[in-house]
């Protein structure tokens, strides 16, 4: 390993993504669907409109449509290829250093499965421990309730602004929009989140949310937008990453130093001790967790682990999977409040928002093991070409394709298209540090969409009907099955194909659904005879 050549992954808190200032999507149960005009822009960016209470799936086009635009965006493709291949190779080296990686992976999976199996028990234990340590625990069933709880807590402090450390959970619920509606300014403090927020953009990667932006764009953004939010960028700002980081440091420092309220998520919550853990790189997390008087952490209920000792697994697997580092620059662990050190008030908001519905699905529940490392994004050939925005959710890539349709349901075009946004190549499963069999869950969710079946929505078990859009496909599959289940008929069909070829029928373009194939590829030529005829002739079978 060289000392200088390593360039450590993406420097940031990995626990979540920034929310776009304008941009969102989310769980829509019973909420207004007014907002949302997000469509795939020509440059592959989706500018959906966000609203308080969560992302609106209706704001996003189906995956293939968004991906079509992204695939044609050469700059986006180049940025993504560079980013994913760089992190991919480093991750492989970092993981290769640990001879017991497979055992750590199995143990991480086992701890998470055990916790999910007894989630009620561990959440109660966590609540007790946090309360005993001076914290206050709140429960939120959905995005709207979580936003109400947090907004009320901020209002009670009398403050009009909060500093936020990157949190996917708060973006999932549209918290910044809710705070804005209540007259509270929420400042994202992670560098990439700041870039996304200033650009009224959406994040496109879990670890490197602004990966779709290059340095010149960022410089322009800082020059024109920083002044509207606080300390302006220096007039002579150039586009070197060091200069841009320095501008962000100065801009955000004044906010950190005066902030009275901090909002975070968490990577882990320890049930036995009530300890919360935030893993990050830049130090904005430490600022938000340490300097304000009031700290509010919004955390999905699946983030609990039973014991402090369990962290020995995840603190080894998360950094190596995420930024490909042996350890990330900063990890903060806190338990309730501490006299004289850090916030004097700590509120933990435990968020359901579709997680218990996901837990009710025996195949799909493994997605709740996710520790948000983003390794699956970096190895995914589909993500690399479609980009994060095409996934229409705070959770992009393979994990998003299995998590989003479970958290939000599959009523919308985007959510029903996500399980099909994969070749099932299995690279994501291979690198997952908690062994989520993403292809298995994808196939399971496809089944729910094309054939219908039992699901749980809002705690209620219902049976969803097969999606209408797949009716023709369903009929074709049924017809094919009847053919394939009768070798006599199959043989007749094969002979028909061979005869058609002998008569010169070799279409270059197919109509209907076949057109998607012949758009870019020739059909294989039909052989003179099927194999079974050769066998019958040559081997007398």
């Amino acid at each position: 390993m060289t000392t200088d050549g390593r360039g450590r992954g993406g420097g940031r808190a990995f626990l979540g993504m920034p929310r776009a200032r304008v941009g969102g999507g989310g769980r829509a149960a019973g909420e207004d669907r007014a907002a949302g005009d997000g469509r795939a822009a020509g440059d592959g960016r989706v500018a959906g409109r966000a609203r308080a209470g969560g992302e609106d799936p209706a704001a996003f086009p189906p995956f293939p449509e968004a991906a079509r635009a992204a695939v044609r965006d050469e700059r986006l493709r180049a940025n993504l290829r560079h980013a994913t291949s760089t992190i991919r190779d480093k991750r492989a080296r970092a993981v290769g250093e640990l001879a017991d990686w497979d055992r750590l992976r199995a143990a991480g999976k086992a701890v998470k499965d055990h916790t999910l199996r007894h989630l009620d028990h561990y959440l109660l234990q966590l609540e007790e421990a946090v309360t005993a340590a001076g914290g206050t625990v709140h429960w939120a069933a959905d995005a709207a309730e979580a936003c109400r709880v947090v907004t009320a807590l901020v209002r009670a402090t009398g403050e009009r602004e909060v500093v936020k450390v990157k949190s996917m959970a708060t973006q999932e619920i549209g918290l910044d929009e809710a705070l804005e509606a209540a007259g509270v300014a929420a400042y994202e403090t992670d560098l990439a989140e700041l870039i996304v927020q200033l650009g009224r953009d959406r994040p496109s990667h879990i670890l490197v949310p602004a990966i779709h932006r290059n340095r010149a764009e960022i410089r322009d953004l800082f020059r024109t937008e920083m002044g509207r939010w606080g300390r302006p960028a220096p007039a002579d700002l150039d586009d070197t990453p060091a200069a841009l980081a320095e501008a962000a440091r100065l801009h955000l420092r004044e906010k950190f130093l005066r902030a009275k309220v901090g909002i975070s998520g968490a990577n882990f919550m320890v049930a036995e001790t009530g300890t919360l853990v935030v893993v990050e790189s830049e130090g904005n997390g430490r600022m938000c967790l340490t300097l304000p008087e009031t700290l509010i952490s919004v955390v999905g209920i699946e983030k609990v682990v039973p014991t402090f000792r369990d962290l020995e697994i995840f603190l080894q697997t998360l950094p190596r999977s995420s930024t490909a580092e042996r350890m990330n620059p900063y990890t903060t662990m806190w338990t309730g409040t501490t006299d004289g050190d850090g916030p004097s008030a700590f509120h933990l908001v435990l968020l359901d928002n579709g997680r218990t519905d996901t837990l009710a699905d025996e195949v799909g529940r493994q997605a709740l093991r996710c520790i948000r490392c983003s390794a699956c994004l970096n190895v995914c050939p589909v993500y690399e070409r479609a980009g994060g925005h095409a996934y229409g959710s705070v959770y992009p890539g393979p994990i998003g394709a299995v998590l989003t349709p479970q958290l939000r349901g599959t009523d919308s075009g985007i959510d029903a298209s996500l399980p099909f946004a994969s070749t099932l190549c299995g690279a994501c499963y291979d690198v997952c540090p908690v062994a989520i069999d993403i292809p298995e869950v994808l196939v399971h969710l496809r089944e729910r969409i094309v054939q219908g079946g039992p699901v749980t929505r809002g705690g209620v078990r219902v049976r969803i009907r097969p999606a209408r859009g797949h009716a023709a496909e369903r009929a074709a599959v049924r017809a094919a099955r009847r053919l394939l289940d009768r070798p006599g008929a199959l043989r007749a069909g094969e002979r028909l194909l061979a005869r058609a070829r002998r008569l010169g029928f070799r279409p270059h373009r197919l109509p209907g659904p076949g057109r998607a194939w012949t758009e870019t590829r020739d059909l294989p030529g039909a052989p003179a005879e099927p194999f079974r005829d050769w066998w019958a002739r040559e081997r007398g079978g």
Partner: protein
Amino acid sequence: MTTKDRILGRIRRAVGDARPPAAAEGGIARDYLLQHGHRTPAERVDLLAAHLAEYRARVHRADPDGLPALLGRLLAEPGARTVVVPPGLPEWWLSGTDVTRVRDEASTTAHELDRVDSVVTGCALAVAETGTLVLDGSPDQGRRRITLVPDHHVCVVRVPDQVVDSVPQALPLLDPARPLTWISGPSATSDIELDRVEGVHGPRTLDVVLLGPE
């Protein structure tokens, strides 16, 4: 029905027969390694030094006799005029410098800390395999904010006593009731085109002094 009851009810229906975990079930197969390789104490310290340096911390070694002069030099080099000192830092550590000491009081504001140039602390322990320092708010380390706001952190690690091999060896030595800060190199970001930049919000310079026995 409260939201809490509703969520707990959903969980119990989702997993079928909800019951507290049996003692035997808590037994997750922990057949992973508790450390990666066996090292002598000196090798462990060398590995820590190598990994700290790889993560762009500046690593120095000193014995007790040389410590005051080394700390004096580390503060003088960047031109520090003020240094914040945790309440329990051994007096003699800073006997080789006349940089103005700022005591951290409960009333010290973040703005005041922002005007301080450097901070000198001890640590709770260090992890060789990952190149990590852990602070737990003990008197020689002080409140979390003093190692965060100043731009220059000098951290003294007593070697080999404070150095463990691995993360699994570190956790049992730490008290989760205390606020814990794990530091592996200076603050960093690679958010812009994956170009690494040291120091965004935390201290941009991290000096680590490995303080050996006489």
